[in-house]
C-alpha cells in the first residue's frame, strides 16, 4: 500500500505545473520493445487533470485498504491484493500518460485485467465470479468491437501510432468517417464509462468487489472511459451538431434512468453503482454542451461545457470514493449492506455517519459542497447554450436543463432514503451488530470529506486549476477568443463564495443563538430538556418494525415513474380474519440487461451450444446455463406482444391509431426535409386545390 500511496503523491506533484497554468507538453520516450509502436509518454493539461484525480483518490484508498482488508481477514492473501493494487495504479497512470496508441491500448488492457483480478478477489463466492465475468466480458467487447477499430482507422489514416500525428490526420477525413469514428468512440469508451445501455457491468461488479476496489472502479476506472472520449475529441475537428445532440440524449437517458434504478435498489453498493451511471451522464452532458459549442463556433460555450465536465470528473471521484469507503465501513462493522436490515448506525458509528452525510449532500449537488460547484458550471453552460440557440435552436440544452433538475431531485430522494434508513432511526434487524470503525479508515474518509468541503466553500480557488485542461480541448478554435473564454470561467465562482460564506456563518450563528435561548429557557423554568421515547402522535409502544422501510419511502416515486422503470411486485395478501402470513416483494430489473443483453447472449449461447453439439459428434452436452429470469416479461416484449394482439383484434381504435401515427410520421418527415424558412408563397408543397383559389 505504501507503493500505491507514493505513486499517488508523485502523480499529484507531477500534475502541479500544468494546474497552475502553463501548458507546454513534456514528453519522454522509453526504450521498451513494443510491437507496432513506441513507448512514448507525454504530459499535457488534460493528462495533468486526470493525474490529480487519480492521485487524490488513490492516496485515500491506500490509507483505507489495509484496515479494511484486516477486517475481512482470512478470505484471501493480502499480499496479492497489494500487488494487484500497485499494478492497477501503474496501468492507470500509463493509460493517462500514454502518447502512443499501442502504449495506450497496452495500458488499457492491463487496467482491465488487474481490475478483473481485484473484482474477483473473493472468488470462492459464485456471485462474485458472475459479477467479475460480466465486467470482463462487457469491457472486452467494448474494447474489441469499438475501441480497436477506432484506433485502427485513426492510425491507418495517420500512418503512425503517435498521438500527435492523429490530430492532423483526422482533419483530413470526410464527414461520414468522422461520424463513424465518433460513434465508435462513444460506444467503446462509453462501455468503460458506463453510459446506458452499456452500463450493465457496473451494478454487477460493484457490489461483489471489495470496497476499496469498488471505490477505484467508480472513481477512476470509469473516468478512464471519459478520458478516452475526451482524447478522441481533441483529435477530431469540430463535429456536426447532431453528434453533440446524440451525446446529449444518451447522457440524459443515462442520468435519469440511472438515478431511477438507484432509487429502486435494496443494496447500498448497487445503489451507489447506479449513481455512478447517473453522474457519468452528468459528465457526458457537460461534454455534449462543449461539443455543441465547438460545432457552432462559440469558444465560450465550449469552454464552459468542458470545464464543467472536467470539474465533475474530480468531484465525483471525491464524493463517490467517500461514499463507497463509508459503505465499506458499514460492511466492515455490520457484515451486511442490505438497506432494509440496517438502521440506527449514527448512534453506534457517528464518525462514519457524518462522512456518509457529507458524501450524500455532495452527490446531490447541494451547497456548500463540491457537487454544487461542478453542477453549477454545467447549468451555466446549458443556459448559455439556450441563450445562443445551439442544438436545435436551444431545445437540446433546454432538455438537458430540465433533466438535470429532475436528476437532482431524484438523487435527493435516493440519498434521503439511504441515509435515513441506514443511519437514522432504530435498527431494523436486531441481530445485526455494529463494530466501531478503525482509525485509519476514518482518516482516509476524513481526507476525502475535507476535500469536498474545501472545494465547495472556496470554489474561486479551485476553478482556475481546470483552465489548462480545458484549453487542450478547445484548441481547434481561434486562440484569442479561446484565451478570453478560459480566463472568464472562474470569475463567477468568486461571487459564489459570498453566499456560501453567509450560509456557513448563519448556521454557526443560529446554533449559538439556540444555545443561548436554551440556557435562558432552562433558567426560566428550572428544568432541562427531557429525553423520552418517540411521541409520533402518542403511540404507546413504538417498535423498530413500525418504521418506514426504504422501499416504502421510494415507492411513491417508483410508482409515478413506472412507465420508465417497469417494477415488479409480488404480493401475498393477508387473508382471513386473523391473517398470519403475507409477503410483499418489489424489484426493478434493469431493462437494458433484460431486454437487450440477455436475449442477445442467450441466443449466442444457444448458437454455441449447437456448434458444440455438432462438433462433438451429436452428443448433446449440458444445456447452457443462461441466467433466465422466468415469469415477468419485460417492457419491450410486452409492448411488442401487445402491438401484435392489438392488430389482430380488429378494433377500430387501433386501426385509427395506426392511421394517426402514419400521418404524424409523414408530417415530421415533411418538416425535417424542408430546412428553410416558413411561409414562402412560392412553395408548391401544399394543397394544389387551395393554390388554384389563391388570387395573387
Amino acid at each position, binding site marked *: 500500500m505504501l507503493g500505491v500511496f507514493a505513486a499517488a503523491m508523485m502523480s499529484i506533484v507531477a500534475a502541479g505545473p500544468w494546474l497552475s497554468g502553463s501548458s507546454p507538453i513534456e514528453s519522454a520516450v522509453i526504450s521498451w520493445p513494443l510491437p507496432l509502436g513506441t513507448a512514448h509518454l507525454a504530459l499535457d493539461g488534460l493528462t495533468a487533470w486526470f493525474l490529480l484525480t487519480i492521485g487524490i483518490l488513490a492516496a485515500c484508498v491506500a490509507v483505507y485498504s489495509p484496515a479494511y482488508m484486516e477486517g475481512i481477514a482470512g478470505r484471501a492473501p493480502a499480499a496479492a491484493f497489494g500487488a494487484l493494487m500497485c499494478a492497477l495504479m501503474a496501468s492507470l497512470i500509463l493509460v493517462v500518460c500514454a502518447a502512443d496508441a499501442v502504449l495506450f491500448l497496452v495500458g488499457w488492457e492491463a487496467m482491465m485485467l488487474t481490475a478483473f483480478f481485484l473484482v474477483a478477489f473473493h472468488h470462492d463466492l459464485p456471485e462474485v465470479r458472475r459479477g467479475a465475468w460480466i465486467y470482463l466480458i462487457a469491457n472486452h467487447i467494448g474494447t474489441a468491437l469499438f475501441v480497436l477499430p477506432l484506433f485502427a482507422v485513426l492510425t491507418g489514416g495517420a500512418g503512425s501510432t503517435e498521438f500527435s500525428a492523429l490530430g492532423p490526420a483526422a482533419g483530413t477525413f470526410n464527414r461520414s468517417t468522422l461520424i463513424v469514428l465518433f460513434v465508435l468512440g462513444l460506444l467503446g469508451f462509453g462501455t468503460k464509462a458506463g453510459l446506458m445501455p452499456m452500463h450493465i457491468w457496473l451494478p454487477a461488479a460493484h457490489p461483489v468487489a471489495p470496497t476499496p476496489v469498488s471505490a477505484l472502479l467508480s472513481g477512476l476506472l470509469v473516468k478512464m472511459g471519459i478520458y478516452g472520449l475526451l482524447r478522441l475529441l481533441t483529435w477530431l475537428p469540430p463535429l456536426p451538431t447532431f453528434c453533440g445532440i446524440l451525446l446529449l440524449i444518451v447522457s440524459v437517458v443515462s442520468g435519469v434512468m440511472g438515478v431511477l434504478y438507484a432509487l429502486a435498489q435494496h443494496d447500498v453498493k448497487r445503489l451507489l453503482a447506479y449513481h455512478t451511471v447517473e453522474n457519468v451522464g452528468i459528465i457526458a452532458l457537460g461534454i455534449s454542451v462543449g461539443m455543441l459549442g465547438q460545432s457552432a463556433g462559440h469558444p465560450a460555450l465550449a469552454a464552459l461545457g468542458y470545464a464543467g465536465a472536467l470539474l465533475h470528473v474530480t468531484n465525483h471521484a471525491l464524493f463517490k470514493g467517500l461514499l463507497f469507503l463509508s459503505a465499506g465501513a458499514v460492511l466492515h462493522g455490520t457484515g451486511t449492506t442490505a438497506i432494509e436490515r440496517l438502521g*440506527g448506525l449514527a*448512534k453506534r458509528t457517528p464518525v462514519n*455517519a457524518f462522512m456518509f452525510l457529507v458524501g450524500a*449532500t455532495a452527490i446531490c*449537488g*447541494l*451547497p456548500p459542497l463540491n457537487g*454544487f460547484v461542478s453542477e453549477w458550471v454545467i*447549468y*451555466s453552460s446549458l*443556459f448559455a447554450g*439556450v441563450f445562443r440557440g445551439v442544438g436545435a*435552436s*436551444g*431545445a437540446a440544452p433546454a432538455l438537458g*436543463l430540465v433533466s438535470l*433538475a*429532475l436528476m*437532482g*431531485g*431524484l438523487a*435527493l*430522494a435516493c440519498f*434521503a432514503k439511504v*441515509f*435515513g434508513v441506514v443511519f*437514522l*432511526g*432504530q435498527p431494523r434487524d436486531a441481530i445485526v451488530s455494529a463494530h466501531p470503525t478503525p482509525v485509519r479508515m476514518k482518516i482516509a474518509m476524513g481526507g476525502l470529506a475535507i476535500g469536498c468541503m474545501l472545494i465547495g466553500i472556496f470554489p474561486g480557488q479551485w476553478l482556475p486549476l481546470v483552465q489548462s485542461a480545458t484549453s487542450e480541448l478547445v484548441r481547434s478554435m481561434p486562440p484569442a477568443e479561446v484565451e478570453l473564454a478560459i480566463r472568464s470561467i472562474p470569475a463567477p465562482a468568486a461571487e*459564489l463564495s*459570498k*453566499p456560501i460564506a*453567509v*450560509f456557513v456563518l*448563519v448556521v454557526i450563528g*443560529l*446554533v449559538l443563538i439556540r444555545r443561548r435561548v*436554551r440556557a435562558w*429557557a*432552562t433558567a*426560566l*423554568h428550572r428544568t432541562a*430538556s427531557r*429525553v*423520552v*421515547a*418517540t*411521541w*409520533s*402522535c402518542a*403511540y404507546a409502544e*413504538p417498535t423498530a418494525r*413500525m*418504521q*418506514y422501510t426504504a422501499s*416504502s*419511502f421510494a415507492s411513491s*416515486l417508483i410508482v*409515478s415513474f413506472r412507465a420508465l422503470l417497469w417494477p415488479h411486485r409480488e404480493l401475498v395478501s393477508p387473508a382471513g380474519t386473523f391473517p398470519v402470513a403475507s409477503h410483499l416483494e418489489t424489484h426493478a430489473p434493469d431493462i437494458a440487461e433484460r431486454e437487450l443483453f440477455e436475449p442477445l447472449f442467450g441466443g449466442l449461447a444457444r448458437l454455441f451450444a449447437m456448434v458444440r453439439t455438432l462438433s462433438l459428434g451429436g452428443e448433446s452436452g449440458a444445456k447452457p446455463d443462461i441466467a433466465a429470469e422466468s415469469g415477468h416479461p419485460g417492457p419491450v416484449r410486452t409492448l411488442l406482444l401487445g402491438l401484435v394482439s392489438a392488430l389482430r383484434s380488429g378494433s377500430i381504435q387501433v386501426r385509427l391509431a395506426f392511421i394517426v401515427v402514419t400521418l404524424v410520421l409523414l408530417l415530421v418527415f415533411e418538416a425535417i426535409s424542408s430546412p428553410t424558412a*416558413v411561409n414562402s408563397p412560392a412553395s408548391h408543397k401544399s394543397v394544389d386545390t387551395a393554390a388554384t383559389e389563391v388570387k395573387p
Partner: protein
Amino acid sequence: MSILRAVLAVPEAIVLLALPPLLLSVIAKTKAKFSGRVGPPWLQPYFDLYKLIQKTPVYSRTTTWVFRTGPIVNLAALLTAATLIPVLSSDSLLGFSGDIILVAYLFALGRMFTVLAAMDTGSSFEGMGASREVTFGTMSEPALFLSFVVLAVATKSLQLSQMMGSGLAAEWQVAAPALVLVVGALLIVLLAETCRVPVDDPATHLELTMIHEVMALDHSGPEFAVITYAAALKFVLLGSILLHTAIPHPPSLYFLGPMLRMVELAALACLVGIIESMTARLRLNRVPMLLAGATVLSSIAVVLVLTGRMA
C-alpha cells in the same frame, strides 16, 4: 452598492425578517372570513413563536444531532436565499450571475435536512411525510427550472434580480401569453412547496393526510418555532419570485416600491387564503397530475419563447 443603498438595506432586512408571521395571520384571517368567523388576532403568530421559544424541548431517545440541526440548516438555507431574492426592493443583497441555480438548490438543501430530521425519529408517520415531501419536491423541480428558463431567455440574464426587474416589464408587452403560463406554473409550485391546499392542508392534524405538519410531529419548543418561522419565510420568498414575475415595477418608484411590495404580498396571502377556502384538498394520487400540469404549463411557455425567437 452605494452608501444610501447599504444604509437602506438594514431596515429593509429587519422588515423582511419580521414580515413572515404577519402573512400567516393574513391567510388565517381570510379563511376565517370565508367561514364566517372573526379569526385569531393579527399578532397571534408572534405570540405563538414567543411561547414556543420559552418551552422546554422534549427530545426522542432515537434521535441524534441531525434532529436538532435539521431545522437550523433549513432556516439558514432560507435566510441565505433571502439575500439573493429581491423581496421588497428590486435588487438583491448578494446577487450574481447564475444565482437562480443557487437559490433552487438552497431550497433543496433545506428540504434534505428537514426530511432527514424527520427520518431521525424512527417513526412511521414522519417517514410517510418525508417520502411524500421528497416525491412532490422532485416533481415540482422541473416546473420551477422551466419557469427560470423562460425568464432567463426573456431577459437574457441569469441573475435573479435582473431577471425580475425592469427588463421583464418590456417582455410583458411582447411575450405575454408565455409569461402568464409561467405565473400559473409558479403559483402551483408555490402551493406545493409551502404545503397549502390543494396539495396539503396545514390546518388538519390527521397524519394520513399531511405532508409538512407530519414531519414536524416530534419537534417541540424552539425547534418547532424555527420550523414554523422557516415555513412562513419560504412562503415570502417563493411569493416574491411570483410577484416580481407577475408585476414588475418600473425603476422610478423609490420609497413607494417596498410599500407596494408589502401590499402585494398581503394580497397574495389573501389569494392563497381564498384558494384554500374554496378548493378541497386533492387526493394524494392526484397531486402528481397537478404538478405535471405545472410542468406542462411551463414547458409550453418555453416552447413559445424559443420558437418566438426563431420565427
